[in-house]
């Protein structure tokens, strides 16, 4: 089948009136599911699965793809408005989104998040359609050494999260890495650092820690009368909720951020084991390093939101590449998609393009249509959510607490997760007092497990020779990435010293 025929068959599948309506319904469902804390993209796809049992394969693919893409976008809504990341990949969105909402610029923050999400999604959909085979082949070249180097690159942000407190940022990152070690070791199933607690056998879940560190700490801060707090009569936005969209000039000012993060997000999404969460943290790191004004990141600028949202949505398209062309899911949500498609008789793998090409084109068209329609539909939903900010804080604060509590519990139906969330909330307070960094702890926790597993595998494969793991001959990708990591880690410490000497 030629490219034109493929496109035509995909368009025919998606542009029928009933299908179009179904995509709209899927976007609404996906956005709302994503916006609710505790309902991850995986859970959103699993919830959407129940609607597809009576559907034919193509409508089922279109419906689930639309839910998958829009749920990642929906996660940004609560991240910006309440500092509760709806999905873990929206955690970096809180760094700049929430300060903007507090300044009364919720509309602009949401607008940037949605546009960036759509852009990232479109870029990755096009990449998936045109470059599915070569991209998969390239991703398969990544061995454990390379994957370790990729995650280590994400960790290199530690030294520039807060240039005034580099040492405490490193300590925070190491605490996060240590938190990721709690529970059974993923390689040999040996119990570590549980301190005898059965609840910690399975490890520390990311979602309760994220919710505790961001949402609960914020509510605690508002409870503390010594801190600058908003009036109890007003909402987060000081009572005034501005839903004004970003201007064209503002969007154009972040065009390179959007392009870079969409490309990197797609590539990270393709890599097995990595996913939208790692993609968003990595791109946020990258943009902090490349920006002309890195000190403004974290204070509420649109660049930070664009980096996080473009990359996490691009990763969704990226994750579809190995899923469709190899039958390997790139992440948990993709694994649920895979089971649904297999249930419908879709044979995922190298033969998909030759034997069932309509499925690939339907997925592509569904992603294109979803990402375009999502801007309009999700903006409507976001505006409704934004009005919540005008609610007095003595109502909104407790609602945030309850949403956080449900979000932590719903993840695994475990009370222990709620207790971990409260501990993380208190930890967030201590972190602030001692100039540690919450983002660094989260970064360590998110990347820790993947970092250790890949290091362990690479160590075994290179027969315990660390230099062979990053040899420029055997592992050129890992070598280049590790050199970049070292340069990035050392530069904030060395550069001021060099400047001092010169002066």
């Amino acid at each position: 089948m030629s490219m034109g025929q493929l496109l035509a068959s995909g368009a025919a599948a998606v542009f029928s009136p009933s299908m179009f309506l179904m995509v709209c319904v899927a976007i609404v469902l996906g956005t709302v599911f994503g916006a609710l804390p505790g309902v991850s993209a995986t859970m959103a796809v699993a919830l959407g699965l129940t609607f597809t049992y009576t559907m034919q394969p193509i409508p089922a693919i279109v419906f689930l793809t639309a839910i998958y893409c829009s749920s990642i976008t929906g996660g940004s809504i609560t991240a910006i408005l309440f500092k509760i990341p709806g999905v873990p990949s929206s955690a970096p969105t809180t760094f700049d989104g929430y300060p903007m909402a507090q300044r009364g610029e919720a509309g602009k923050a949401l607008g940037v998040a949605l546009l960036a999400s759509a852009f990232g999604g479109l870029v990755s959909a096009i990449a998936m359609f045109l470059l599915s085979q070569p991209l998969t082949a390239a991703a398969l070249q990544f061995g454990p050494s390379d994957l370790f180097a990729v995650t280590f690159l994400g960790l290199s942000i530690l030294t520039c999260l807060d240039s005034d407190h580099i040492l405490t940022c490193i300590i925070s990152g190491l605490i996060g890495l240590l938190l990721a070690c709690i529970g059974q070791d993923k390689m040999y199933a040996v119990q570590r650092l549980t301190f005898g607690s059965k609840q910690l056998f399975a490890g520390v879940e990311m979602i309760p820690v994220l919710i505790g560190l961001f949402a609960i700490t914020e509510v605690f801060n508002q409870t503390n009368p010594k801190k600058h707090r908003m009036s109890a009569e007003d909402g987060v936005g000081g009572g005034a909720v501005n839903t004004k969209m970003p201007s064209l000039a503002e969007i154009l000012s972040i065009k390179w951020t959007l392009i870079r993060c969409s490309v990197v997000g797609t590539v990270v999404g393709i890599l097995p084991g990595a996913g939208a969460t790692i993609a968003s943290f990595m791109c946020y790191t990258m943009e902090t390093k490349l920006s002309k004004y890195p000190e403004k990141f974290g204070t509420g600028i649109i660049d930070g939101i664009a980096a996080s949202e473009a990359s996490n949505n691009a990763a969704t398209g990226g994750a579809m590449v190995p899923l469709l062309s190899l039958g390997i899911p790139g992440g948990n949500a993709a694994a649920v998609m895979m089971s649904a498609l297999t249930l419908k008789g879709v044979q995922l793998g190298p033969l998909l393009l030759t034997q069932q090409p309509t499925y690939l084109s339907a997925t592509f068209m569904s992603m294109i249509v979803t990402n375009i329609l999502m801007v309009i539909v999700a903006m409507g939903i976001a505006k409704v959510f934004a009005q919540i900010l005008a609610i007095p804080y003595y109502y909104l604060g407790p609602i945030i607490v309850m949403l956080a509590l449900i979000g932590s519990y719903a993840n695994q139906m475990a009370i222990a997760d709620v207790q971990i969330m409260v501990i993380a909330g208190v930890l967030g307070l201590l972190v602030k007092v001692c100039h540690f960094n919450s983002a660094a702890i989260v970064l360590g926790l998110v990347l820790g497990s993947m970092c250790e597993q890949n290091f362990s595998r690479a160590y075994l494969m290179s027969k315990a020779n660390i230099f062979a793991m990053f040899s420029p001959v055997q592992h050129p990708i890992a070598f280049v990435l590790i050199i970049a990591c070292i340069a990035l880690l050392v530069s904030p410490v060395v550069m001021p010293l060099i400047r001092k000497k010169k002066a």
Partner: protein
Amino acid sequence: MFELILNVLLFVFFGWAFFTHVLEAPVPIKVQKNPYALQPDAWPKAIIILLEICLLINIIKIIKKNKGKEDFTLGAFCATIPNFFKSKLFIGIVILTVASFILEPLGFMVTSFLVLCAYGWLLGAKKYGQLVIASVCITFILYIIFSGLLSVNLPRGYGFLRDFALALENIVQSVKNLFGGKKEAADAAETAAVVFNTVRTMIG
């Protein structure tokens, strides 16, 4: 001073964990004998060593920075402790800690109502009647969204609270069934009758 104390406590805690809790189960002999395998304790131990070095540097930095300051004494720090226990922040932490422990025995409905009321009061709500009504309404809305629509199994509680939660779940299921068809509607009516009787027995 608090910053110094916390750093010292972390230093001691991680040092203790290094020697006692990094490995809590025997490593399989196959792994032990494999010279190329990264032992399960190697990665966390490496992190703790780095952490201890960084914490030590940080402790020295804090002492150097604050040396000679009047409020940088143990006495000055101890004087602030009673104020913390009287603060709203402490009450907030207590409310959430208690909520995380009563969630299982009292169930979602009661815990949610109590948290919404208590935290609302803490954040400065003055119209108590309104706060109670809002708490009831918000609890029901959250329950319907998460339990009814998203099928999240929220904690039911123990004893009669469990019966109450089951009765509510039956009502939600009945409402769902009403949209299913005549047979389901009949089943729903039957369930509603059972629920009504359960509630009446509970009240009685």
